[in-house]
Structures are given as structure tokens and as C-alpha cells.
């Protein structure tokens, strides 16, 4: 189906050269789901674009459906379905119009569409939304619409670039189940990339990509075996770590779990944030104690970031109270900010300053100076292994190291409250492990940590978790309690899915359909 031979692609010139793909060779057999796994910047998108003939390799060759990707790119493009990371939907066209456009581009006859479109809409549960503008759909729905647009021509091969990025666990699960159903019913081959390593189990084959090199290829089971002997019943992520550096770091444990009588740092009561008619956060209440790791979970748009912004004093709540150390936040804002560290979802450091200069700047901005600043920088360089890159400009760092630098900058002033907004998304497993090691250390030393994340395995580390949906809190408790709340689910992910669906009559039907899809598919 697909064959890559020694594929190499370099971007940029001279000193700025970046090897996006370095001698990648593999084959993918028809009739299966192949997962392209790797952190951000591993080369997944570059590889995808080569597969559909949008990029020309520097050396090596790509053959797709027996066609050469350079000489016969037009033929490949006629026969494959491709969903790029940015969907490629026209936001001010309706769902039906988007589908119609792609159908016309592929020259699909009307009679064919009459059966195919309703079927695809049914599988993806978009039937009720055909007249809605694509721009007004949720992230998960946009992904599914993009999928329909690519499927409309009955391609033999589907290429999907990160179809599950930035959507909640429920939508991710649904997407993989839809893909499975398509592979089986339509006799298709699917290649999908993802940065979520826990999605490996949805694939028949996995390709592990890291820094432009293909580290391994095999079934998820075969990949897990790579870490055998290094640790007990290895996870996929541990296998990835083993592939990168040949060893598996020790699993992380809390040394001093938070105590019930630890002082309450942040108390939030009946917090409400409205934007016009829209209620982004609706009656949220929680307490965060000293030394506690508190996780805010939920889909994009559930209200996590808005809650975060209110806690940091960036947004003023419409209603409700936020108290820090027993005093209202509004009266305490300066003091609160001085002891808060914040790592934003987007890379917010200065790309054209060196690692050291960024640290000096952020340290100075928080009022750390002179000898103390030098000491803290030395600590950060050591703790986050940034020493070798001290003089490198921040934009040149890999994704994982950018995240480490962002974290280092946020910790220079030894904050006692730390906010992490999806601070690990897109990083490689080694950096992520490094990251969490620091977070656990911080919590052990009494720092209150508030995080948002899409990774369910990260949620495991939290002392307490609050799950949000549509601005409301639908469950609070430890990972253990959440599992019980979710009907004694086996994993946190299952519990999350169960909770989020129970709460919401609309999603309930969706989830039922998901299980229907599952039953149909299997």
C-alpha cells in the first residue's frame, strides 16, 4: 500500500537547517489502521505531506498505491483521502455545502451521493447539523466533518494528520471507533498520526517517529515488548522511552501525599463567568490545599482556561468568590501574583532570546535579582537539563525543551502556587517524565499545583480532579473516587467518558451511538 525508502527531507538553509525526516523507511500493508506516533516536531506532518505528494523528498522515494509520489502525485491525490491537521474546512460554508464542494471536486455523481452522504453523516452523528456553518461546530465535530469530506470519494487510503488533537477523551475515542468501522466496512487503509501515545492501542500497526527518525515499527504489543526486562508490564509510553534512550525511567510516586489538614491556599465558591448570554463557567466551587496537585479536566471549551484566567486575576468573575490564603483575590492580587508561577498553553517565551537571557528576563520580571537570580538560574539549568542549550535561542529548542524552559522560567521566583495550562501537550515522553518529576517534587515541598491536561495518565498524578463540562463541575475527587463515580470503571479514561456522558442528555445519545458504532464495527 505504502512504501517509503530512505526518505529524507531538510528545511531551511545553512545554519538554520533542520532535518525533518532522516532516512525513514517502512511499508504499510493494506486493510489496517497504521498509527504514526511521535511528539510535536517529530516529523509526522512532513511525512504525511510526502505521502500525499504535497512535498518533494530531498532523497529517497515514496510510493503510495504503487504510484511514485513525485512523478504521479496527481494520480495519488485523486485516489487518497487526506485530512490535514487544520481540517481544511470552509468555516463560512455549511456542513452540507462543504461536503458538496468536495464531492464536486471529486466528480461524484448525484445518485451516488444520495446514499453515501446520509450514511457517513449517520456514522459520524452529524445528521442534525447539516445546515450549521462549519465554523460553528465543536473541534470534534469539525474533525468528523473533515473526515466525511475526505471519505466522500471512497478512497482506498485515508491519511489523517492528528485527527484527535485538542479534543476531549470522549471525542478521541469516538474518532478511533469511526476509523475502525470505516476500515472494516469500506475495505480501506488508514494512516493516522497522533501525539497521544495512549492511542496506540487503537492501531493495528504503529510507527514510532522521533526527531525525524523512525525508531520502530510494529503492533502495539511488539512495541511494548521493547521495554520488557526494563520494567514490569511496560506501558506504550515506557516502550517509547526505552526506544529513545535505551532505558525506562522509574515510575513516579508522591513522597508526601497531601494531608487533609494542610492549609487551604485557594478557596473558590460559586464562581460564575458570563460573556454576554454565554455562561463559560457556571457555579464552580473547590478548595486547593498547600502541597496538593489539583487537576482541571474537560473538553476544549468546557471552561478550564476561563477558570484559570480568573484564578490568576486576568478575568474578573461575574459572580462568586476567590480567596487566596483567606483573603479575597481582588485585594490580594499583587501579592498573589508575586508567589504564582504560570506556564501557558502556548509557547510564550521570547524565541530570539537565548535560554539564559529568557531566564534572566523572567527572573527579573518577578523581582529576582543579583546573586539569588544566578543561583536560581543555575538550579533551573541543572534541574531541567538546559545547561547545554544555555546560549541557544529559545526558538531553536525542540518542543520538549521549550516546555522545560517555560517551566523553568515560571519557577525561578520559587512560587508557592503553580498554574500549568496543558503544559505538556505535544512533548516527548522523556520531557514529560522529567516535567512530572519536578511537579511532584514541588507538590512534595508544599507548593499548590493546578493543572489542566488532556492526558488521562497525567490526571493519575493529581491528588484531586475536577471534571468540567459546559462550564459546570460534574465530578470532584481523587482518581480513585472518580473511578467509583464513573461506575467503578476500570481506568480513569473510562470513568471520564462515563461521567461526561451521564451528565449530559445530549451526549448520552451520542455515547450510546458510540457504543452502537463499536458493536457494529466489531
Amino acid at each position, binding site marked *: 500500500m505504502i512504501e517509503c525508502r530512505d526518505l529524507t527531507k531538510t528545511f531551511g538553509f545553512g545554519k538554520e537547517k533542520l532535518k525533518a525526516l532522516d532516512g525513514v523507511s517502512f511499508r504499510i500493508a493494506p486493510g489496517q489502521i497504521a498509527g504514526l506516533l511521535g511528539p510535536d516536531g517529530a516529523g509526522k506532518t512532513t511525512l504525511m*505531506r510526502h505521502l*500525499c*505528494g*504535497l*512535498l*518533494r523528498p530531498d532523497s529517497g522515494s515514496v510510493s503510495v498505491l504503487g504510484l511514485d509520489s513525485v512523478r504521479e*502525485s*496527481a494520480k495519488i*491525490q*485523486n485516489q*487518497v*483521502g*487526506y*485530512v*490535514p*491537521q*487544520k*481540517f*481544511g*474546512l*470552509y*468555516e*463560512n*460554508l455549511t456542513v452540507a*455545502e462543504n461536503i*458538496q*464542494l*468536495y464531492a*464536486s*471536486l*471529486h*466528480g461524484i455523481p448525484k445518485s451516488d451521493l444520495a446514499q453515501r452522504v446520509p450514511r457517513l453523516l449517520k456514522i459520524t452523528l452529524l445528521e442534525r447539523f447539516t445546515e450549521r456553518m462549519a465554523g460553528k461546530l465543536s473541534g470534534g465535530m469539525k474533525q468528523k466533518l*473533515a473526515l466525511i*469530506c*475526505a471519505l466522500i*470519494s471512497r478512497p482506498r487510503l485515508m*491519511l489523517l494528520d492528528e485527527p484527535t488533537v485538542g479534543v476531549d477523551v470522549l471525542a478521541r475515542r469516538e474518532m478511533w471507533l469511526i476509523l475502525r468501522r470505516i476500515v472494516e466496512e469500506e475495505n480501506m487503509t488508514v494512516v493516522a498520526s497522533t501525539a497521544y501515545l495512549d492511542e496506540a492501542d487503537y492501531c493495528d500497526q504503529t510507527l514510532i517517529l522521533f526527531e525525524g527518525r523512525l525508531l520502530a515499527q510494529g503492533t502495539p504489543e511488539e512495541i511494548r515488548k521493547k521495554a520488557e526486562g526494563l520494567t514490569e508490564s511496560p506501558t506504550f509510553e515506557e516502550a517509547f522511552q526505552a526506544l529513545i534512550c535505551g532505558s525506562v525511567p522509574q515510575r513516579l510516586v508522591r513522597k508526601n501525599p497531601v494531608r487533609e489538614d494542610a492549609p487551604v491556599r485557594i478557596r473558590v465558591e460559586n464562581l460564575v463567568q458570563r460573556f454576554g448570554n454565554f455562561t463559560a463557567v457556571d457555579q464552580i466551587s473547590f478548595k486547593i490545599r498547600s502541597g496538593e496537585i489539583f487537576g482541571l479536566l474537560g473538553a476544549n471549551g468546557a471552561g478550564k482556561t476561563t477558570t484559570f484566567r480568573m484564578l490568576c486575576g486576568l478575568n474578573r468573575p461575574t459572580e462568586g468568590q476567590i480567596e487566596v490564603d483567606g483573603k479575597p483575590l481582588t485585594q490580594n492580587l499583587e501579592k498573589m501574583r508575586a508567589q504564582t508561577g504560570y506556564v501557558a498553553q502556548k509557547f510564550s517565551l521570547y524565541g530570539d532570546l537565548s535560554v539564559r537571557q529568557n531566564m534572566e528576563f523572567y527572573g527579573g520580571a518577578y523581582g529576582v535579582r543579583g546573586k539569588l537570580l544566578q543561583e536560581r538560574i543555575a538550579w533551573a539549568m541543572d534541574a531541567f537539563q538546559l545547561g547545554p542549550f544555555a546560549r541557544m535561542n529559545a526558538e531553536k529548542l525542540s518542543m520538549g525543551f521549550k516546555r522545560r524552559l517555560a517551566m523553568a522560567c515560571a519557577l525561578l521566583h520559587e512560587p508557592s502556587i503553580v498554574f500549568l495550562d496543558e503544559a505538556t501537550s505535544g512533548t516527548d515522553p522523556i520531557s514529560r517524565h522529567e516535567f512530572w518529576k519536578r511537579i511532584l517534587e514541588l507538590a512534595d515541598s508544599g507548593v499548590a499545583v493546578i493543572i489542566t491536561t488532556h492526558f488521562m495518565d497525567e490526571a493519575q498524578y493529581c491528588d484531586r480532579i475536577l471534571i468540567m463540562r459546559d462550564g459546570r463541575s460534574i465530578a470532584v475527587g481523587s482518581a480513585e473516587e472518580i473511578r467509583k463515580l464513573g461506575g467503578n470503571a476500570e481506568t480513569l479514561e473510562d470513568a471520564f467518558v462515563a461521567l461526561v456522558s451521564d451528565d449530559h442528555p445530549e451526549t448520552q445519545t451520542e455515547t450510546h451511538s458510540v457504543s452502537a458504532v463499536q458493536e457494529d464495527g466489531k
Partner: protein
Amino acid sequence: MSPSRIFALMGKEFRQLVRDPLSIALGILLPVVLLLICGYGMSTDIRNIKMAVVVPEPSREASLIISRFQSNGFFDSVTVHSTQEAEELLHRHVVDVCLFLPHDLAKKCRERDVELLVAVNASNPSPAFLKKGYIETVLAGVAPQLLSETPPDPSGSQLSGMGFTIHSRQWFNEENRSAYSIVPGIIVIILTIIGALLTSMVMAREYEQGNLESMFVTPMRSSEILLAKMTVNFGLGMVGLGISLFIGCVLFGVPMRGNPFILIGGSCIYLIVSLCIGLLISSLTKNQFLAVSGTIITTFLPSYILSGFLFEIKSMPPFLQLLTNFVPARYYVDFLQTSLLVGDVWPNILKNLTALTLFAVLFFILAKVKNPKRL
């Protein structure tokens, strides 16, 4: 090329255009607003024009002229007796206009050889032009009485035919530009905005939002999307042109002296040039912000500054004059001004349209080459 695909793409472009408030604003609102603002400036009644009448010696004829200006209601006139005095007043901005009557006015009227000089402070050209016009109108009214022996000319205002010559000087700005030149200028601006700016923006948006990435992986050819984009924005440009011409000609009385079909044909060529530049820039930058900045610098500003719309090309430094040869808008401004205000001057039309056609071909080829079906 498949007609059904182009048709589908055009349908998509049209829907997007209609739903995008910005496009509608640029295509329809902008011409109306620009023309109304400038048109208002063009048709303002200027009252209380401060005028000095230089009367070297009193005479019946001089009094007649002065009384006409005083009774007219538009002028505030003072009578002075020497040229120096009048110049002094003009320099001190006490008056804006000076009317110089000759010596021996009575005798010259009898001999039908009257020469008058009108000097206008033309530092603001449009009102200066109007004031001069007003003075000429008043003089045309008074002329038959001055030359009383002559039966009034039925056609009215041909002053020179009556042996009446008015010389005018526009002080401080020798190269006065007619207010009418604003309408052709605005048409150029509108076609540049719709053609280059809007097109480069919507195309760059497709790169930015990943639309093209997924469209490329269909049987669609890149020339098909170029064509569809051009067609729809071409339509919008034509709507803008139509509105501008309508407002210019009907509301503000800009004369359309040339053949309207030639005018529209030439405009089509210029619009195609703009469209191709827009497509070229967007495929080079692939980013909305860069595309807009690039388009403003390379097309929009030159079409204002280097096209001869705001500043006379002949009065530019030689280097800039040379540079204007590479500004397509320059040829179009010249073409439009001639076509609207002068008439069909074939050497001029041929020269300008040839240049525009060459630009269109050049930029279409570049846009096609720079828009391959690759990222």
C-alpha cells in the same frame, strides 16, 4: 480543467463572498463611501469667496462688473486700485481671488478685445478650480451687457467668441488638478483593493487555514482554483466599478467622453492585473498578514502615490518618474482620465492598454508558476 469542478469552486467562492461582510464592505460600501466623501468635496457650494477687484480707473463697465459680483451672493469683493495692493491682499490671505480689470476697459469693450486676468490662491486646488469657475460664470453673465452692441449669443457662454478673454493664474500650485480627476482616481483605488488586496487576503487565508492543503489532495488543479477565485472577485470588482461610474457620472456629473465599452474593457484588463498580483503575493507569503502588508506596499500605495492620481508624474524627481513605468496603476489612471474627461484618444488608449495587457500576462504567468499543487 474540468468545468464542473470550476463551477463547484466558483459556487463556493460566491457563497463565501456573500457571507463575508468584509468583502461586501470593500466591494459595495467602499466605493459609495469614498465617492460620497470626495464627491461632497467636489460639489460643495463655496460661498463668501473673498475677492479683490483691481480697478485701475473707474468706469461704467467696471462698476457693472463689481455690482454683478456683489449682487451675486457668492462673493465678498473689495475694490483696489493697484496690482500691488491686490497681490498684498492675496499673500496675506485676506482674499483668495483677484480679478484684474485692464486699463481703458470702456475702450476695449467697444473694440471687443477685453482681456481679464483672474489669479487664484490654488494651494488647495479643488476649491481654487471651483472659484475660478464661478468667476467665469459671472463674467459670462455680464459680458453681453458690457458689449451691449452685440446681440446676445443664443448658445450663451462662449466668452471668447465675443472678444472676451480671461487669463487665469493659479498661484502657489501651478499644476492644478481637476476635481474630476478624483473619480478616476477612486476607481483605481477600488479596483486595486478588490483585485489585489481582497484576493491576496482570501487566498492567503486558504493557505493559513489549511484549506488548500486538503483541496490539493483532490483531483482539483491549481489553475482551477485560481480561475474560480479570479472570476468571483472579478465580478465583485465589476460591481464596484459600476457603482463608482454610476455615482461619478450621475450624481457628480463627471463627463463620460469616451466610449463606455472601451472604458469597461480597459478596466477589466486592469482588474485582471490586480487579481494576478494578489494571487501571486498570497502564494509567495501564504500568510494573511504578510499578504496584506505586501499588497499594500506593492500595489495600493503606488496606485495612490505613483500613478499620477494624487501627484503629477511630470513633477516627480527623474528616478521616481522612471519607477512609475513599473506601476500598472499609472497606465490605468491615464487611461481612465482620458476616457472619462477627454474622450477616445486612440494613441493614448493603445499605449495604456498594451502596457496593462503585458502586465496582466506577466503576472498571470508568475501566479500560475508560483501556485503549483505543492506546499
